[in-house]
């Protein structure tokens, strides 16, 4: 049967994704002594530190998404107005970071944001501030790094959505009397919203589970779920706690995606992206 061709892929996904996730779920229900219990989940509700971890995670994700929207929308708009060929060339500035290892990019920000780093020196030179500001090993550095890493995830689907807006709609609006600014806000922007929401969702969900960048740029001060999970495993080897955290993260992710899927047709986003 034709669908049999998809079987090897299905097997790999089951082996590498489904089964481990299943185990994690199972492990989260095992208490200290090896018995079934909900103690891991109970601890999460009791210990304030866990709540703070989730708060931080959502905070970082939300802020990163916001920054990405503010920076990414103008960029996507600019690219969508260019003729195809030129857009392809400028798009490389989005694709290159996208396809460069995030370690490289994180490392670059580590260097750039230091006290003696480029950003501080540049800011002092143009008079933005006088003494070097602590830009790394804190929330600021984390946000900057994550925004940089996540930006392509917003720009690509948004760009795709913008390209699909019929040019005649802009002409019709202008012909009917709308000034260019009005054409943008009354016709173009509303029609680009689904793409923007889709991209924002991707960014938000990716941020939730992110590890490397907050770990390196946060300097231990920005504790997100992924960092917490890793710490628990490294220090206590407490699979129960770690997997419980992970399961909650997974469920939160799925809920958000489900709600979003109801609002949009995710198909268009997935297929339109590449």
């Amino acid at each position, binding site marked *: 049967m034709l669908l049999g061709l998809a079987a090897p892929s299905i097997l790999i996904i089951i082996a*590498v994704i489904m089964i481990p996730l299943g185990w994690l779920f199972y492990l989260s229900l095992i208490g200290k002594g090896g018995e079934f219990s909900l103690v891991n989940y109970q601890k999460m509700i009791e210990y304030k530190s866990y709540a703070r971890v989730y708060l931080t995670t959502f905070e970082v994700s939300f802020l990163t998404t916001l920054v990405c929207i503010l920076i990414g929308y103008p960029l996507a708009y600019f690219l969508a107005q260019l003729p195809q060929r030129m857009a392809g060339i400028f798009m490389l500035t989005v694709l290159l970071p996208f396809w460069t290892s995030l370690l490289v990019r994180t490392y670059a920000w580590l260097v750039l944001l230091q006290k003696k780093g480029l950003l501080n020196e540049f800011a002092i030179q143009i008079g933005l501030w006088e003494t070097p500001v602590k830009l790394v090993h804190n929330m600021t550095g984390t946000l900057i790094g994550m925004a940089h890493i996540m930006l392509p995830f917003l720009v690509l689907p948004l760009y795709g959505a913008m390209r699909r807006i019929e040019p005649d709609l802009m002409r019709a609006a202008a012909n009917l009397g709308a000034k260019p600014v009005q054409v943008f806000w009354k016709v173009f922007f509303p029609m680009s919203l689904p793409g923007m929401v889709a991209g924002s969702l991707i960014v938000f969900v990716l941020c939730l589970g992110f590890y490397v960048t907050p770990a390196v740029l946060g300097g231990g001060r920005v504790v997100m779920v992924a960092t917490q999970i890793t710490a628990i495993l490294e220090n206590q080897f407490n699979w129960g706690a770690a997997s419980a955290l992970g399961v909650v993260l997974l469920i939160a992710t799925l809920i958000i995606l489900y709600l979003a899927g109801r609002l949009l047709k995710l198909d268009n986003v997935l297929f339109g992206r590449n």
Partner: protein
Amino acid sequence: MGFWKKPASETQITHGDRLWLYVVALVIMLLLIIPTVIVVPMSFSDSQYLEFPPSHWSLRWYEEYFDSAKWIRSTMTSFQIGVLTMLVATPLGTMAAYALYVSEHRAARTIFVFLITPMIVPVILIAIGTFYVFGQLGLNNTIGGLVLAHTSLATPLVMIIITAALRTYDLNQERVARSLGASRLKAFFLITLPQIRFSILTAALLSFLTSFDEVIISIFISGGVNATLTKQMFSALRDYIDPTIAAISTIMVFISTTLLLATQFFKARQEKK
């Protein structure tokens, strides 16, 4: 000055009116590129400390890298895993893409979403999950384990790329070939495959990159002799800031850029047809 008076869009707004947009976009693009390529000049700095701009230039970090058995071994490991991932994920993803695109079965949609899940699940969970399961099976720190894990990340990517390529391709050609006597397999290989070959090449290169650049899963399930380059880099970043990382990063940027430009080249060739 004629350019600035020319209309820039359907509303006939001029380029001049839009200057602010062009400046903003330019700044953003610079902000995207600079952190990506700044490692390049940094790697030629002579200093022990991370500094930019470098006060003295030298190739010492490259020497450190090429002289270090550890770094070279991990690079080779990453390459090996990358190539193997590419060789496994590309056919698997292509087959899945084709099957799901052509099939009229009700389940096709569901299977497609199922195969996308590695992109939806937070990678940290895949990392610790496989860490645990592979630990039980003795697959941790093995090439095979890593290839398996990376393939699960790369296959959905290949699938999406090939599906997009199939959408722009006229499937009737295959039907014609089959009416002329070719089996479905032959029709695919003789008619369809050559026409989407550039997309397949792109998917292959990107699955290599996905594996080569992958960090989180590698941190967990690679180690010892079979540590990946990224794992070693991460450890180096966390424990002591070794400027050799700048040299390695440069090499990685170089690889990414080359492969990316290759895919752009392929895209251009594909669209010329």
